[in-house]
């Protein structure tokens, strides 16, 4: 700790000296060119935004939103849709954990074919080849689940099982399963090797090593990632309604398309509420469990 200030000062000094070095200038120029290119390409208009036409349009639209529709009838319905959205995110996250957990063991290199656990196994190349194939296919499956955006999954599933929150929940689960699988895999591949080594030295079997050496290390992080993805999923559950997967999203789409701006504001407030609740819940649980 005692070294930190001097080190920091030295670094800062070094940085200041080469602030205008050639690579930095090239980097800056490249950045400016990219931004200019994006500015033109996105038809962005700063003047329009700062007091011009676009600003006026946005203000007009924002004014139309008020006051929110607070009739009892609509509030009750909004409550139901909010719960539906919550249910979608909750079940979707559980499905995702099931998918990710069943694939993560196959998609971790250190459990499948390399590293400490397999150092003694060189004399059986075909076993190793089989394991590698299993590993690669699990990895490919996870990539596929993750790459297809959840909106596209939802479209496919709405097509297959009809409208409603069920396809939305499946879409969330499938896409998030891929994401969690990757995150879990990274945790799994970065476990501390010492406990594993120690267990191996006692002659523990691989299953025992998994249960007593690896899982205790990774489970808290798995839970943390899952809760974090749940926060993401509640937002995505709102989006999925757009393609007919029920919940608040569907109602938002209806409200926007039919120019029901007062209702739109109520729905947005409901989103704000449910997302905030889930964020707090997830933060609380993470604090409690880890």
């Amino acid at each position: 700790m005692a070294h930190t200030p001097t080190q920091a000062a030295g670094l800062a000094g070094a940085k200041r000296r080469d602030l205008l070095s050639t690579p930095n200038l090239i980097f800056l120029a490249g950045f400016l060119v990219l931004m200019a290119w994006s500015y033109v390409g996105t038809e962005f208009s700063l003047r329009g935004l700062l007091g011009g036409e676009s600003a006026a349009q946005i203000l007009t639209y924002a004014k139309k939103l008020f006051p929110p529709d607070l009739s009892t009838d609509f509030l009750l319905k909004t409550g139901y849709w909010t719960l539906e959205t919550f249910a979608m995110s909750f079940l979707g996250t559980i499905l995702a954990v099931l998918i990710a957990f069943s694939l993560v063991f196959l998609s971790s290199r250190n459990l499948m074919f390399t590293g400490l656990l397999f150092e003694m196994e060189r004399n059986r190349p075909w076993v190793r080849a089989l394991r590698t194939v299993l590993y690669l296919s699990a990895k490919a499956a996870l990539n596929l689940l993750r790459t297809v955006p959840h909106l596209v999954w939802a479209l496919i599933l709405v097509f297959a099982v009809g409208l409603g929150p069920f396809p939305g929940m499946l879409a969330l689960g499938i896409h998030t399963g891929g994401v969690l699988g990757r995150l879990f895999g990274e945790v799994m591949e970065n476990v501390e090797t010492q406990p594993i080594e120690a267990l191996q030295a006692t002659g523990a079997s691989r299953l025992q090593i998994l249960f007593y050496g690896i899982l205790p290390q990774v489970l808290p992080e798995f839970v943390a990632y899952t809760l974090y993805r749940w926060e993401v999923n509640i937002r995505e559950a709102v989006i999925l309604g757009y393609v007919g997967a029920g919940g608040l999203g569907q109602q938002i789409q209806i409200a926007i398309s039919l120019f029901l701006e007062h209702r739109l504001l109520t729905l947005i407030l409901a989103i704000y509420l449910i997302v905030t609740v889930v964020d707090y819940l997830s933060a609380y649980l993470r604090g409690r469990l880890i």
Partner: protein
Amino acid sequence: MQSNVPSTPASLILPTRRFSTFQIVCSVLFVLTFLGSYKLAQVKPLLLFEPEGRRNIWKFVTGMFPPDLSWNFLSLLGRPILETIQISLMGTFIAVVIGFPLGLLATSSLTFKGILNERELAGSRPRAMLRKGSYLLARAILSLFRTIPEFVWAFMFVRAVGLGPFPGVLAIAISYSGMLGKVYSEILEHVNPGPLEALQATGASRLTILLYGLLPQSLPNLVSYTLYRWECAIRASAILGFVGAGGLGQQIEISMRMFNFNQVTTLVAILFVMVAGVDALSARVRNAILGRSSV
């Protein structure tokens, strides 16, 4: 029992599991939520295996192959691809412009807490209230910005300013400024206070403390997180097209609605390559930044 215990080495006895009230309450709530959600979400797993659903999925999957690689189609995609990148760049840039000042205001150690403010705010109560007020306001704005999904922002901006990439940029800018601002404030709150105190002791102004005490410590983390958000922005801007905010998403939506699933395959593959490319690029830059600073 008693006689057995000493014979096993102490380290091999697993701790007996005792469930705390908290755990029991949590489990019960979990099961209840699960059952409630199951009913509410109208889960019918059998639907997946019904002949019609199966036929639909099959039609979809077979329709996806072979991917449409005709020149006619591919030549349409150049502009949406570039547009997606442009939206993400511009959106992230504006998000930084909005998010950074708000993030500074939402940093408690800068606005009203801790050693930097102790002396200044000890005497004047109204001043302390004002500071705390601006802090709370900044946090509220950031939370509003990031809680509404970018998709909904885009939807509203499309309604307000019309179709095209411009509403996409605005949507990314607003919702990402909320996320960036929050994380910036967290990073800034967790810097080592030593250098800040030293600077203050020399009589440095707040701006000097910010520039020479805070930023040198936190810049690598700030930049790295911004780059990470840019990766997310590419993915998001591809999706925003669904509501008419330009980019690849618009193409995906059109192809879906026309049941041209082979085009969807091509589009998703392109999206994958783009995202993977940006991931790799930004991971390299981030490693370079963080690596250099931690030496």
